[in-house]
């Protein structure tokens, strides 16, 4: 995995020292809050509803075990013993004291981590397929591309004060696990008819108050043109993106208002003015970055596991949480952070250490975070699956619900977030509780429920098969439902249903539509398939059947 070079390390350490000085000056009054606020935000420190919150960047969701142990250390020493995996694959701490944050950042820097660009109108953490480097369906490992974009965008002088925040996602697989159409720029590594590898660039996607799916900006971009082309795109956005209205400042609004054809022309015209050799990185540098992501040396002599002789709970977990690996005899293990009694995405320091130990023993020291707020051990020998499961059981991380109705994406909502209009965590817990029976979850099959505590849509509700948006009127929380959203390669924005529900009514309503789907589905149809076949009206009727 990528290790900082001297430049990275020196830069991060100098940023920590700067921030230490800024905090000192804030505490003794030399800096006012108005002066300090942008500085703390540049270092990932927010003031939330009840306390400060520190958001630590996990670039493209890849963690070494020393990094995960460091996050556990931060949770124990400076916070309340846990962290929260976000839908951008980062980790948040909900309760740090301002005076401790310089020490937290200093500790993070010792393992090549920081909280820079996790806030502000800059290019944020690049997200990525969590199965990168482990799945058979990818063209190549997308993480060197993500790392290249990270290096290019880190404190890019031209793009540090954009009209609004800017999010990249990358994948190299036709099965989109990175939601590339829901990002400002999504990149898919593709092959053209000549067999050359290049990039499909998608622009103008985003959720929030105006959900839009991205459109193709360039169907095949030669690899060498990547950074000049991204530079041209960012310049067009920087020049024409609206700065007068923050609700219209994202690139999706510019693309929509300009039209994709004209927007593409603007980018192409800008690209034509650039000297590609000025911005492009050399082949040697690309190879240097890629060398950090070389696959581990896989054992070619692994015995098949005899599942029949294993306990039923283990077999169910394998069926649900384990995915095929590119190397024969290996598997990708999804670790669910969706225990119905906990907040989706929360993981305790002890659990982090348990996952790090398992990764060291059984996954070449690699861990991933996912935008679905889970974790992944990317390279596990199949004959070690039982040992991994035993370890997960001991750490209470054995929930077998990946991609099922219990695997709910949920933002922190009113329980922690200063912008929230309603709570989301208790709603996720109530739904998970209602459908806690594993066999029922299995019978329902693939289902993505996504919950946001306000219109900002950090919980991606627009692209949930069932999306839930928490709102509030006259002091009472209520929840609006969307159906038919899809975050994958068949991306779709969900259809808004009618009037909202109280939390209790909502859980009943969800059960009604799930039961309706179970009754109507044909063959192996997923919920989404049946929804698409029968259409909105039928499901809407089921949703509101008792009201």
């Amino acid at each position: 995995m990528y290790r900082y070079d001297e430049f990275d390390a020196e830069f991060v350490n100098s940023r920590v020292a700067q921030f230490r000085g800024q905090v000192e000056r804030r505490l003794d009054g030399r800096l006012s809050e108005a002066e300090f606020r942008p500085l703390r935000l540049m270092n990932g420190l927010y003031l939330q509803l009840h306390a400060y919150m520190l958001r630590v960047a996990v670039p493209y969701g890849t963690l070494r075990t020393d990094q995960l142990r460091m996050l556990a250390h931060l949770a124990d020493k400076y916070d309340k013993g846990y962290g929260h995996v976000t839908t951008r694959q980062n980790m948040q701490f909900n309760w740090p004291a301002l005076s401790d944050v310089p020490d937290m950042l200093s500790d993070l820097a010792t393992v090549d981590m920081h909280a820079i660009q996790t806030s502000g109108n800059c290019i944020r953490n690049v997200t990525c397929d969590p199965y990168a480097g482990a799945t058979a369906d990818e063209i190549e490992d997308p993480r060197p591309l993500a790392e290249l974009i990270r290096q290019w965008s880190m404190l890019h002088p031209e793009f540090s004060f954009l009209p609004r925040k800017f999010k990249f996602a990358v994948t190299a697989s036709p099965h989109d696990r990175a939601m590339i159409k829901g990002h400002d720029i999504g990149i898919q590594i593709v092959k053209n008819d000549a067999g050359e590898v290049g990039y499909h660039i998608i622009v103008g996607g985003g959720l929030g108050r105006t959900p839009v799916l991205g459109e193709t900006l360039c169907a095949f971009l030669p690899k060498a043109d990547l950074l000049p082309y991204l530079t041209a795109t960012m310049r067009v956005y920087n020049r024409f993106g609206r700065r007068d209205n923050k609700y219209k400042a994202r690139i999706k609004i510019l693309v929509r208002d300009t039209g994709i054809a004209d927007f593409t022309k603007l980018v192409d015209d800008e690209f034509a003015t650039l000297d590609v050799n000025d911005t492009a990185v050399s082949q040697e540098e690309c190879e240097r970055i890629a060398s950090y992501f070389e696959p581990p040396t896989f054992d070619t002599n692994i015995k098949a596991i005899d599942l029949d002789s294993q306990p039923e709970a283990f077999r169910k977990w394998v069926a649900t949480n384990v995915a095929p690996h590119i190397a024969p005899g290996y598997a990708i293990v999804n670790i669910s952070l969706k225990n119905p009694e906990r907040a989706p995405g929360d993981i305790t320091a002890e659990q982090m250490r348990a996952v790090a130990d398992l990764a060291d023993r059984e996954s070449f020291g690699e861990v991933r975070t996912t935008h679905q707020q889970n974790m992944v051990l990317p390279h596990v020998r199949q004959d070690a699956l039982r040992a991994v499961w035993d370890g997960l059981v001991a750490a209470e991380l054995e929930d077998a619900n990946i991609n099922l109705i219990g695997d709910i994406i949920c933002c922190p909502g009113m329980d922690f977030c200063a912008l929230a209009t309603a709570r989301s965590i208790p709603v996720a817990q109530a739904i998970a509780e209602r459908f806690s029976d594993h066999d029922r979850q299995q019978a329902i099959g693939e289902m993505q429920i996504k919950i946001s505590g306000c219109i900002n849509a950090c919980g991606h509700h627009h692209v949930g098969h069932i999306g839930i948006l928490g709102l509030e009127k006259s002091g009472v929380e209520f929840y609006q439902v969307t159906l038919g959203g899809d975050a994958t390669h068949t991306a779709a924005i969900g259809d808004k249903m009618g009037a909202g529900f109280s939390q209790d009514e909502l859980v009943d309503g969800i059960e009604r539509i799930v039961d309706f789907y179970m009754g109507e589905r044909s063959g192996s149809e997923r919920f989404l398939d049946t929804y698409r076949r029968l259409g909105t009206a039928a499901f809407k009727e089921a949703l509101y059947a008792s009201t």
Partner: protein
Amino acid sequence: MSTLKHKGKGPQAMTANELVSGLNVWMTTDYGWSRDYADALLTEDDDQISIMDETAKAEEFANTVVGAYFIDTVDGKPARYRERFRTHGPSYDTAALINQERV
């Protein structure tokens, strides 16, 4: 420019966050701060409101608190849902589970 100006309706309370911890506080009857809303001074008295305003500004200037503002209250409770919610903290926090496990 002050953000503290009282524009509300009905009895007012003053709230802020402690600068160091970030935790929520409310102004008390002796114009100090408490993390417990039960201690909050709720008043419609213009003189008191003006003292609250000036005290909060001074406290922000002295860097004890940050982001002070008035909130409307009704029947002793904050009027807005968000502000009511702020008085009792998260309805769920994994920290509570960890503490149970560690006991």
